[in-house]
């Protein structure tokens, strides 16, 4: 049954469409235009000049930051996925239904606490006189420099995406057909081997999507690299804020932002392709 476009239908569908076109699509399109503008004497002028692209792409600082961000985000995805998996697995397979509901509820709570506040809180754990070093000193160790290191940045990334990754992994694990696991056991596949031969392949889509989200979040995050990593090494997000602050170089910041979006799109495309590989619709 095909209905003609009606006032009724448009009343519900149009508002969001208009809003997102006006305030989501247009800003991103404007970012593209902005990247071709020029800056003279701290004033931006509409223009069509590739100077921002050539300048940014010609700088080693940019490519260093790009490589750093890519490596950090990739490492964060792998680390978070690996650390989250046993937790998601245990919640999915070893807890009762009631405990599992509680586990999910508790994992949702972090989404409603300020990420910034949690990062600040990590500072009190990691600083030279912080909680961890005090505890270590009781057993005669340390102090260790933990704040303003790449390790601290990683803890920040974990704080950012661990709950989301656990939840996404969990949702793909609980939907695994239990008879597949029984069937594997029944064919001489032991516990650990079943995890690799059956559980992970069955949950692949969810696991890859979870890792992808971790990558996206870490790739664009600037709170952890600044407040836990001490701004060193420079990531793209730090480079964006620095660029905007220094001499109204918004067009150059736009170049960085667009490069980031492009990279994320490629990564997302590859990840989704891999996640759904061999699945007919």
């Amino acid at each position: 049954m095909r209905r003609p476009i009606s006032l009724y239908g448009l009343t519900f569908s149009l508002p969001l469409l208009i809003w997102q076109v006006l305030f989501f699509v247009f800003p991103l399109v404007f970012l593209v235009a902005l990247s071709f503008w020029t800056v003279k004497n701290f004033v931006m002028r509409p223009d069509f000049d590739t100077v921002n692209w050539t300048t940014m792409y010609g700088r080693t600082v940019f490519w260093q930051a790009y490589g750093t961000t890519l490596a950090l985000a990739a490492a964060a995805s792998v680390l978070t996925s690996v650390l989250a998996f046993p937790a998601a697995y245990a919640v999915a397979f070893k807890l009762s239904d009631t405990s599992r509901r509680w586990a999910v509820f508790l994992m949702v709570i972090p989404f409603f606490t300020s990420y910034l506040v949690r990062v600040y809180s990590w500072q009190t754990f990691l600083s030279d006189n912080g909680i961890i070093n005090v505890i270590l000193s009781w057993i005669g160790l340390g102090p260790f420099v933990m704040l303003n290191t790449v390790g601290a940045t990683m803890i920040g990334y974990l704080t950012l995406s661990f709950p989301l990754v656990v939840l996404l992994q969990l949702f793909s694990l609980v939907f695994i057909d239990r008879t597949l696991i029984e069937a594997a056991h029944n064919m001489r596949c032991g516990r650990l081997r079943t995890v690799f031969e059956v559980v992970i392949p069955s949950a692949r889509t969810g696991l890859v999507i979870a890792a992808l989200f971790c990558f996206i979040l870490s790739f664009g995050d600037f709170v952890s690299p600044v407040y836990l990593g001490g701004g060193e090494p420079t990531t793209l997000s730090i480079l964006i804020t620095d660029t905007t602050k220094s001499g109204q170089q918004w067009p150059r910041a736009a170049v960085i932002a667009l490069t980031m979006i492009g990279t994320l799109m490629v990564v997302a495309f590859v990840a989704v392709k891999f996640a759904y590989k061999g699945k007919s619709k």
Partner: protein
Amino acid sequence: MSRDTLVSFEGVVKSFGNFVAVQRLDFEIKKGEFLAIMGSSGCGKTTTLRMLAGLEAPTEGVIRLSGKPINDLPTWSRDTPMVWQSLALFPFLNVRENVEFALKMRGVGKAERRRRAEQWLDRMQITEFAERNISQLSGGQRQRVALARSLVVEPEILLLDEPLSALDAALKVRMQSVLKNLQRETGITFVYVTHSQSEAFSMADRVVIMSRGNIEQIGTPQEIYRTPKTRFVADFLGSSNVFTGTLQRGSAGSGIEISTSVGRFDLDLPNNSNPLGQSATLTVLDTKTQLSHTRPAGANAVPVRMIGEEFVGATATIYLETSDGQEMRVQKGHQELAELDLEIGQSLFAWWRKEDGHLIASS
């Protein structure tokens, strides 16, 4: 335990919390037989199979495989491959990889694995689908993959949990003969759980009928069909007319008869061991029950009224009602039926020879 026993259940009980799924099982499975375990849903048949597969632990009792107790063996240390109702084929592996799975788990080398999988793909006539995904197969093809996957290790026993329930009627019949032939050719012991009488009776050498966690009867399909041991079995099979009454000495002074609300019937029991005066149940197969317009002499007869008829293929089922409202059925060929010239509402006599009656002693 005899030499040809492969599996024995000895006092096996299974409860889930307060719910007792299996009351107390004592039975044996013979080497090389096709055993069907039949019952309605919730009777404990699947739990029994899962205990044998090592997917459930018995609460009490011992299960032996080739004489050795296997209660404590995890499922992956037993050789009791199973075919699931859902088939449980791995969707992330193709047909060949599914079939090779069990061999891979046993550490069989790649070339050997491939060779043996090839054999079974060929035997199950699915070689052409070897590289396909499971989702691209039809129901019947999936069935064959599941069988190949379990049989590729050439086990001594194969467990099947209602594997045909998802197929349409025609395919079901075809797969039944595939299964039966496979079992005969390989000599592998099949334990087949089903709720379908036609599946159990057409394939199995012996049938176990379960109800509420108990075994009601074990026997060949013939035995169970002709001489149901309990009222439950007779009702469950639904192929007999059943009368309940009291046993007493025959009115002619000799023999035994049963007195029911619709009449007294002679029984053919030369060596009766049932105590007289007790209640008992008489069953008469609907194929052995006859119809006539006049009361036949020398046979057990019940006055009935015809209430309906149903034609399925070459036979018809005539539905009758006794004076006290009990339903009876008679199976007749079309030819015979035409000669009887029946119409609905007519009064008739249903009758049978006394040797066609079968007595179930009351429990």
